[in-house]
């Protein structure tokens, strides 16, 4: 039975995206909004709005019981959690199951199976998906050397008791590992009270790649190609693209298979993403984690496959037998997304809430904007700072880069500080144009010169 009425348990651009996707499938929507969002664009376009709680997310967007109560009281038969907030809380999925509301996402069991890091690694291992080679806890520097000799250099030491860079020493040969091991162990001991170390393969040049999948819950999992999200600052993605042209075609095929195998093994249902670290020098990829939800950057996959993934999510949740076969999903051209944030790069990316006084968004062929902003709309200080996603599509990567550059030039936002100037600097940089960057590039190459240029 197709769903008839959906509760949208989210805000901002993704709430609006879900409202519109549902409407185009003939479904009604009820938006669960906080007080701060009762006048949002999504609230205007939804069939009904219920004010779920105060602006503070913990008493509104993070309360699963309020969401499910609102869904039942307004006669919804489905609930879409969007991304962030409650989207990967198995408790919400379980509550929906219990109350007979179709959760637009995986089962509670699946969310738990992939949500726990160790459980997810066990799954990956069982499915034959490679992880970063690493040792068990090590007794001595000699044990570390023996392990490193076996897997090859470079390697990195890691503290068994904690992270945050303490106890981490990168070693490129036997001697530096011997020297570094003692230093790292002392550092770990000081930081965590435990000097125990293990050693992992160090990926010199890493790209973040991920595979978009949708499962039918009965063991069939389709993939919609991969994305490259290496342009990050502090693990926050800023620019994403598809396909991941840095990977050889054969490697991409192996990547897709790994993602599909991993999730087919648990009869995964609805949209999900499997994230990998790609080692450029070795041409190998390692499993990182599964995101059991629709992701911010899903539009780039939509642009190259022509499939509306949010509509597909709603149809899968309604139990519709998918008419898709893998062979129906073809990749066409190249797409790039840039995240527009209400953050000020000149003030260490301080959030910059406020009211939009000017909003001139680019338009044209191959240009798409996913946003809930307009002139007069306010960016409340309570939530995430992303205000828009600018997505471009062209026949190939150079064409997409050019289109993105032009679109960013045209984009004008006033009333609050944004990262537009930084995005223009990224897209205009030779390394980006030529596709020569890794996950550390933005922080180590671009940002230092970007800040310097402003100061001079």
């Amino acid at each position, binding site marked *: 039975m197709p769903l008839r009425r959906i509760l949208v348990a989210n805000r901002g651009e993704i709430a609006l995206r879900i409202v519109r996707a549902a409407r185009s499938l003939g479904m009604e929507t009820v938006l669960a909004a906080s*007080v701060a969002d009762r006048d949002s664009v999504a609230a205007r376009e939804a069939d009904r709005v*219920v*004010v779920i709680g*105060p602006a503070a997310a913990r008493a509104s967007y993070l309360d699963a019981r309020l969401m499910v109560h609102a869904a039942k009281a*307004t006669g919804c038969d489905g609930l879409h959690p969007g991304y962030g907030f409650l989207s990967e809380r198995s408790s919400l999925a379980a509550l929906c199951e219990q109350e007979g509301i179709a959760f637009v996402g995986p089962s509670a069991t699946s969310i738990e199976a992939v949500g726990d890091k160790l459980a997810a690694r066990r799954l990956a291992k069982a499915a034959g998906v490679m992880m970063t080679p690493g040792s068990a806890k090590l007794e001595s520097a000699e044990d570390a050397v023996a392990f490193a000799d076996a897997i090859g250099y470079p390697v990195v030491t890691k503290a068994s008791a904690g992270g945050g860079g303490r106890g981490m020493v990168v070693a490129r040969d036997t001697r530096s590992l011997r020297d570094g091991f003692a230093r790292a162990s002392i550092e770990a001991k000081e930081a965590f009270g435990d000097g125990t170390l293990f050693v992992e393969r160090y990926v010199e040049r890493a790209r973040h790649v991920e595979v978009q999948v949708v499962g039918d819950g009965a063991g069939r999992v389709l993939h919609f190609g991969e994305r490259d999200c290496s342009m990050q600052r502090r693990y926050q993605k800023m620019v994403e693209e598809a396909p991941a042209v840095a990977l050889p075609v054969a490697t991409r095929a192996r990547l897709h298979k790994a993602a599909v195998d991993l999730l087919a093994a648990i009869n995964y249902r609805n949209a999900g993403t499997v994230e990998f670290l790609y080692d450029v020098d070795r041409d190998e990829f390692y499993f990182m984690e599964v995101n059991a939800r629709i992701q911010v950057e899903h539009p780039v996959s939509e642009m190259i496959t022509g499939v509306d993934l949010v509509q597909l999510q709603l149809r899968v949740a309604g139990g519709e037998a998918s008419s898709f076969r893998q062979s129906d999903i073809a990749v066409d051209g190249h797409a790039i997304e840039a995240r527009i944030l209400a953050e000020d790069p000149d003030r260490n990316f301080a959030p910059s809430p*406020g*009211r939009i006084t000017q909003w001139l968004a680019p338009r044209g062929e191959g240009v798409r904007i996913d946003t809930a902003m307009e002139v007069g709309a306010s960016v*409340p200080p*309570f939530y995430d700072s992303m205000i828009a996603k600018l997505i471009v599509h062209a026949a190939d990567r150079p064409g997409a880069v050019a289109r993105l550059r032009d679109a960013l030039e045209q984009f004008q936002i006033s009333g609050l500080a944004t990262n537009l100037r930084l995005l223009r600097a990224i897209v205009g940089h030779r390394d980006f144009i030529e596709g020569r960057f890794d996950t550390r590039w933005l922080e180590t190459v671009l940002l230092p010169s970007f800040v310097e240029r402003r100061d001079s």
Partner: protein
Amino acid sequence: MTIIPARDIEALVRTFDVSDWDEMRVVVDGLELYLSKNPADRARLASAPNSAVSSATATDKPPSPSAKSTSKPAAIDVPEGMVVVRAPNLGTFYRAPKPGAPPYVSIGQKVEPETELCLIEVMKLFTSVTSGVGGTVQKILAEDSQLVEFDQPLFLIDPRS
């Protein structure tokens, strides 16, 4: 009079929301902003319509994380001096402790600040709502067994009688 930007007010409200302060008063030129986490202050604020809240909400509707105290007037007309009791959270509104039982209160009834007025149910968890002010029940604004939203007006209380 200086125009205070909405973002400044939002920042103040946010600061207050995450703090452990009970109340905060800011006076700048013609603007007086009073925030409180004490539900009983609703009475005081509503009975002084020319003071803090009305001027604060008149500026640029800052989102109010603690709408108990800074709630903007909703779509109802509140006669001068009357106090509105609002829903502390979304849920189902029940006027009686159980089906068939007499309602907690009826129109014209005298109430104390501690008097229970209704129940709000969320997924079978019931929370009682008290008046917060002494007076007489003038109006009941929500329908029994129906969904009420966060901050929705439920009762009108006349504190002078």
